[in-house]
């Protein structure tokens, strides 16, 4: 206690005592991963590839044409399952997880009164936002990875084959196929991070996690609608989901990264904007 008090007399100019960052991050992760809805969400995501895999293995008839063309390739190409599931989860399921965890990170803590506690500890506001962003990023990565891992296991089991038939008509062996899955995980994660960053900015502005989550998803749905209006072609390259379809490029041979790279830069821009807005709001808000 005496030592503590001696330390307290340090002048303002000196370095303020801070809890170690790793401890804060660990504590954040422990909290995030014990939250029931995170666990339920992750569990449901893990079921997605299994459900799709079973559905396809039961489906009779040859591969259909048209927009379902990807489904047609699946039988006997088990390693396509994780990619397909990611593709299908991208428009809604994964953003839902990202937005949910971002909504809980600030608005949820605010609603519980726990944000106050952290600010009083004190954790500086900018640092706190960093910790929260880390938590959201980790949940997102875990969610995407769960789909990929479960898909990569369930795919060969349910659909057979440990190779990947590309849209270009070539067949990739196991290792390159897994490489593609890994690329998909990284790419999708960055895209969902962008959703999470925007959700964090909204989350910093409200005390109601539902508002943060709903407005993020509503914005995303509006973007998707705008994407389908062809006369808005000039606007579409600014919208985050513009390149979400290009995850299909990972099933082409040779790999065409151009659209994926554009999408990554777009997501990075959204992350920068989202985190900046969230930081600005955190620095000025009354907790």
């Amino acid at each position: 206690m005496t030592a503590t008090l001696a330390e307290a007399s340090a002048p303002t100019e000196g370095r303020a005592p801070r809890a170690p960052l790793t401890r804060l991050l660990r504590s954040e992760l422990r909290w995030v991963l014990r939250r029931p809805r995170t666990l339920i969400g992750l569990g449901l995501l893990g079921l997605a590839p299994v459900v799709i895999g079973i559905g396809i293995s039961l489906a009779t008839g040859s591969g259909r044409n048209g927009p379902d063309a990807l489904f047609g390739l699946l039988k006997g190409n088990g390693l396509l399952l994780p990619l397909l599931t990611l593709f299908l989860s991208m428009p809604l399921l994964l953003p839902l997880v990202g937005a949910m965890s971002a909504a809980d990170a600030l608005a949820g803590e605010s609603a519980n009164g726990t944000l106050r506690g952290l600010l009083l500890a004190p954790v500086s506001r900018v640092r706190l936002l960093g910790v929260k962003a880390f938590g959201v990023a980790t949940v997102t990565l875990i969610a995407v990875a769960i789909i990929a891992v479960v898909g990569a296991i369930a795919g060969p089991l349910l659909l057979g084959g440990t190779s990947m038939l590309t849209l270009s008509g070539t067949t990739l062996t196991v290792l390159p196929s897994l490489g593609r899955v890994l690329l998909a995980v990284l790419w999708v994660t960055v895209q969902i991070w962008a959703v999470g960053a925007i959700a964090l900015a909204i989350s910093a502005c409200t005390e109601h996690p539902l508002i943060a989550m709903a407005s993020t998803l509503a914005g995303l749905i509006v973007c998707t609608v705008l994407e389908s209006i062809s006369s808005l072609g000039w606007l579409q390259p600014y919208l985050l989901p513009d390149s979400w379809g290009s995850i299909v490029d990972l099933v082409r041979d040779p790999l065409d990264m151009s659209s994926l790279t554009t999408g990554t830069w777009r997501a990075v821009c959204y992350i920068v904007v989202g985190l900046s807005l969230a930081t600005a709001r955190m620095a000025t808000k009354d907790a």
Partner: protein
Amino acid sequence: MTVEANERAGVESAVAGSTPARVLAARTRGLRKTYGRTVAVDRVDLDLPEGAVLGMLGPNGSGKTTTIRMLLGLTQPTAGEVELLGHALPGGAGHALPHVGALVEGPGFHPFLSGRENLRRVGAAEPLLATGSIRKAVDDALERVGLAAAAGRNYRGYSLGMKQRLGLAAALLVPRRLIVLDEPTNGLDPSGTREVRQVIADLHAAGATVLVSSHLLAEVEATCTHVAVLHQGTVVAQGELAELLQAGSPALQVSTEDISTALNALRAAKVSARAEGDGLRVELTGTTAPEVLRTLVQAGVAVQEARRHRAGLEELFARLTESEPAAIDAEEPR
């Protein structure tokens, strides 16, 4: 007890140790906070002497919580300055806040975590807690507020009182120089209230400064050395409790059945008095008790009992918060 505390809380009784004596643990000047057009707090100059137990009183909506939030850097004041443990906010928050424990606006915890887990999460953010000692600090704090037995249960299942205790435990996780408790006895049963009083007394005895906001006057009167009364967003009175109580104007409580005769007699003698209960209340301004009694007896009033009126906190509070604030300012000590 109150008197003893007052003596202890003098300027000299700064925190022990190597630190140079600081007169004030917290200080605000010209503090103002507006929400849109609503003025929540205005011209608050609050002084919290180190080692004192300051009771912050005020009716609902008088700006107690807003003031506390600004004091802790949670809310940015619209105007004015805050100094906490010698550091100006918000720049010095990083230096000051580690030494401040607070329970503001009720306990805030995660419902799906146990009390212990919740406290460990708080502990992880405490700059002054070494990583290795978090567990012990948490268990000690739980023990201190009597929650050791329920520590493993989910916060969701806690009663209001248990939640309040957990909030107190979080404030006490680290040895603090200043503890800020916003309505700490909310939802506590009488024994819980007593325990909180004991905790405050212990903290006081250990040299810590305590700021308690409450609307329970008895609680404040029993535990505090200093009082600040807020009304309509401003401090209408502050100072040592005993001083404030004495500053109340003296009065004489007279029991009699002959109220109208008594009043007439006193009015004739130009002594201010009014009927109160089964007797009179006579203001002793410009007169003395024997003088009043003589007047009454001479008028043939049957005085059954006469005693000095001792101003209580409740009365002081009522007087401060019900009358014109301008009149109060003049009476403010110092």
